[in-house]
């Protein structure tokens, strides 16, 4: 019964539903892209250092344990409400898993492989591009996959700070005790998270070189 009513709600308000869905996906995708652009190079760079790495990795580990809602709540007094503060908070949320996996992925490349690469005359950049990154691909992608699921789920909470997305239906549904409307947000949000997990799982397998 509830599902039918939820479906009827979508049919009655297609603009609101698809608008929210689009915002949700845009917000998540942008946050994930930003986080990858920041955390992947940083993780790779940290793997080549000693001192900076331990501090950054400790920070990232703490960051990973922060609840999503807390991150959003912390951002609001600083940046206010709306799409951009939500994007900022979600990016923050996605950084730790990508950073940690990029760092670990590069660090676990066997030292003798790097030694052979260097001994044969690869530059530092060539070692990173041709050897370390391809070997670390499965681990790095596992990090992006974790971050993707976290961001898509976390984006539901963006509604609390006016970020829009599917969370709008959930908060409104809870406020008005309107269960069908709540499901209009909850079910697609869940499916999106599952879909993101699948998508990045496939990408991870497709991009892993066959020798690994």
């Amino acid at each position, binding site marked *: 019964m509830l599902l039918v009513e939820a479906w009827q709600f979508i049919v009655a308000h297609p603009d609101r539903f698809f608008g929210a869905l689009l915002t949700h996906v845009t917000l998540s995708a942008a946050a994930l892209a930003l986080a990858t652009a920041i955390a992947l190079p940083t993780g790779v760079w940290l793997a080549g250092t000693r001192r900076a790495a331990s501090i950054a990795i400790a920070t990232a580990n703490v960051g990973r344990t922060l609840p999503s809602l807390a991150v959003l709540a912390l951002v609001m007094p600083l940046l206010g409400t709306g799409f951009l503060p939500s994007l900022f908070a979600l990016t923050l949320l996605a950084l730790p898993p990508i950073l940690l996996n990029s760092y670990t992925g590069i660090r676990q490349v066997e030292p003798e492989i790097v030694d052979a690469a260097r*001994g044969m005359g690869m530059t530092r950049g060539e070692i990173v591009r041709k050897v370390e990154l391809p070997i670390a691909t499965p681990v790095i992608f596992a990090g992006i996959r974790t971050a993707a699921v976290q961001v898509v789920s976390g984006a539901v909470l963006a509604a609390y700070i006016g970020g829009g997305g599917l969370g709008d239906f959930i908060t409104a549904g809870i406020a008005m005790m309107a269960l069908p409307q709540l499901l209009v947000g909850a079910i697609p949000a869940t499916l999106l998270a599952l879909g993101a997990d699948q998508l990045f799982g496939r990408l991870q397998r497709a991009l892993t070189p066959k020798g690994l």
Partner: protein
Amino acid sequence: MIDIIGLVKQFPGTARPAVDHLTLTIADGEVCVLIGPSGCGKTTTMRVINRMIEPDAGTVKVRGRDIFDIDPVSLRRSIGYVIQQVGLFPHWTIAENVATVPRLLGWKPAKIRTRTDELLTLVGMAPEIYRDRVPRELSGGQKQRVGVARALAADPPVMLMDEPFGALDPITRARLQGEFLNILRGLKKTIVFVTHDIDEAIRMGDRIAILKDGALVQYDTPERILAAPADSFVEAFVGADRALKRLSLIPVTSACEPWPGTPPPNTIAAEASLRDALARMLEADVDRLAVVDADERFVGALTLQAIRAHSADAAPVARIQRFP
């Protein structure tokens, strides 16, 4: 020719230098084995030659050129590099691994392909079978064959080999030692070969440099090192069976004598070593053997006295000069 001159390297936090005023000249086309107990500086010395380690003092000249005048990256591309753990790139095929340096040097794909197949054949890996395989599908011995092919790819005049057979089982090791000795001799490469295995050093080396505490103790041919160890350290290092090791380096033909009478009943092949001959005598309980060539023709006789004479003619060797 490789000239190592007054090399000094001390790693931070260590009590004494890893390499301490080492001077050594390696002739073109020779296999020079650096050997000594762990911590003697053999690997450090080798790794200075392709500038994987920067020394504190001293210099190295490869074919007259100071290596510190050459950009490390282009220097390394011109020197073959083989390590014990091989370090094949797991995400590349065998062909791509062999082509590493040619690709870095920007060779044309057709030339790379011809060269790769040629090298795989040279190291005994049929290209049509192995070209498109990946490293994890190979055995340890096969991996090192590919490792050597990869180091040879751009035809470098100098090769550095750091315990290349150290991780292999004894049977595979013996087979690869024999094969690669022939391959590398045939290619006239100048080779710096690091090992801690004296038998391998005797087998592979044209010259052996014995190092201790970062300094050169003796630098000589395997025959001379066995016949006349410079001091008690070298004597202990080459082992109590050095007389036997020495015999293994002398071919039967060099002790073979003309024999007018009937040939002795037991035979030994002309290409065998005196060590093989001695074992044959003990086995058959005789004191002379008929030496026969590849066509089983009698060429002379080998007596126990002749073997004795060869094992005893150790000429005294002056102690090598220690450089300040």
